[in-house]
């Protein structure tokens, strides 16, 4: 399958997404904000629609909308305007409603839209790969630089606040990274499924890991394995890549849960 350039591009972009999504998802799961990716994804959908309407690449408008959505959720949470799940619900429904209205106004309710919603291995261009690689690398470097502070907030948010760590800023960084991950991953996995790739590898890894370090390592291994396996299956079985990738991750979760059960009985 690697004789085709579109597959080489899809695999290269998929590798970045497979690395980044679980790393960012690790912090979302620990903050019990597993569904934030869905909320941001729906705002990104409105961004795609806005891109069609104003004639700009939907990838960029989706990225901007996702970041604005993440900032809105974090602002609502930290200023206690709404509880975490309510903030998520507000942004979630506003995003999908706005997206439907905008996409209808743009007359873009067509098959091409589905490649943004559910991903497609045919659509990754060289320019997409360059953007995914640069933004993905930037996000991973940011996580590496802030890793200890982010972990401290995840482990004990109140203790981190007492110790003087800028907790609201660090939480904002995590939400923005989630938005960035959605923005750069939608060509491969799709807006509606990328949140799963951020969360499922992490909750699978937690079943069998023995430390934070091993949780993060296993999450990345499961994320990367799911993307590469999912893309391969998608190519040979002619299935949509987003769904295949997420179902592979779900399969690995079931495997991890089985291992945990067996280990518990020994």
């Amino acid at each position, binding site marked *: 399958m690697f004789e085709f350039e579109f597959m080489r591009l899809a695999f290269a972009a998929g590798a970045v997404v497979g690395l980044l999504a679980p790393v960012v998802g690790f912090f979302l799961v620990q903050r019990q904000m597993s569904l934030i990716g869905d909320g941001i994804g729906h705002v990104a959908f409105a961004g795609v629609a806005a891109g069609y309407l104003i004639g700009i690449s939907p990838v960029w408008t989706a990225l901007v909308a996702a970041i604005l959505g993440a900032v809105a959720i974090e602002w609502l949470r930290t200023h206690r305007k709404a509880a975490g799940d309510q903030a998520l619900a507000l942004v979630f429904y506003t995003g999908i409603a706005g997206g439907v209205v905008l996409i209808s106004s743009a007359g873009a309710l067509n098959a091409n839209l589905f490649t943004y919603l559910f991903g497609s291995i045919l659509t990754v261009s060289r320019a997409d790969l360059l953007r995914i690689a640069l933004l993905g690398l930037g996000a991973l470097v940011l996580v590496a630089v802030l890793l200890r502070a982010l972990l401290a907030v995840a482990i*004990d948010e109140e203790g981190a606040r007492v110790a*003087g760590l800028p907790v609201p800023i660090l939480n904002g960084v995590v939400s923005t990274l989630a938005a960035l991950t959605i923005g750069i991953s939608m060509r491969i996995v799709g807006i509606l499924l990328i949140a799963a790739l951020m969360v499922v590898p992490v909750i699978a890894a937690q079943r069998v890991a023995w430390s934070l370090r091993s949780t993060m390592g296993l999450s990345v291994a499961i994320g990367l394995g799911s993307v590469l396996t999912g893309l391969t299956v998608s190519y040979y079985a002619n299935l949509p890549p987003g769904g295949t990738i997420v179902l592979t991750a779900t399969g690995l979760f079931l495997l991890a849960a089985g291992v945990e059960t067996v280990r518990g009985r020994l």
Partner: protein
Amino acid sequence: MPLALRFDGIEFAYPHGPPVLRDVDLEVQEGEFLAIAGPNGGGKTTLLRLALGLEHPSRGRVELFGEPAERFRDRPRLGYLAQRAQLGIQAPATVREVVAAGRSALKPFGRLGADDREAIDRAIERVGLITSAGRSLTRLSGGQQQRAFIAKALVADPKLLALDEPTSGVDVEAQEALAELLGRLHGELGVTILYVSHEFGAIEHVVERLVLVRERIVFDGPPEALPGVWHDPSHVHV
């Protein structure tokens, strides 16, 4: 002896709520071991949060080591054990990983150095968990988990150790072990300790001073001077 903490004419109420604290004047000297007790809802946790600059008083002034508590600069040197301290995450963090998180504010960037690793091991050793340093917290008892969080609070060499209901959810044996540990740490390190609890039986023999709070400070003195009926904080009426 310089002051670690000073409350001057403090009043506090949450937005649209009745007063939680009124007319609170309190001075705590550096190196003191102070227990703050009182009935549930009496304002003791609020008092601690004001001391740490996490809440702003409606009236009055709170000073921490001579600076306004909210703008206290040496924050990494405040050790804090939150109410029902437990892992805020579902991932299996080891004791060493949890304690290392206590160094993050001192050194937010870059790799941990040999001095950090030494400090982490020393803190774990002080609380008697060195043989469990690599074990996940989820595999430890409630009392051991509390010790891991105390090690985290100790690892940045704190000037002040603030513990909010540290014995909630642990059995009597673990409560006594915790009191013995805190007494020993106070003797060895000379750190100022603020210990907030709705009941203080386990800690009574190791603290130097007891403050009972029920909206106001209703008792401030050595535990042995406390009127007998008030040993059950639910009987504290003013």
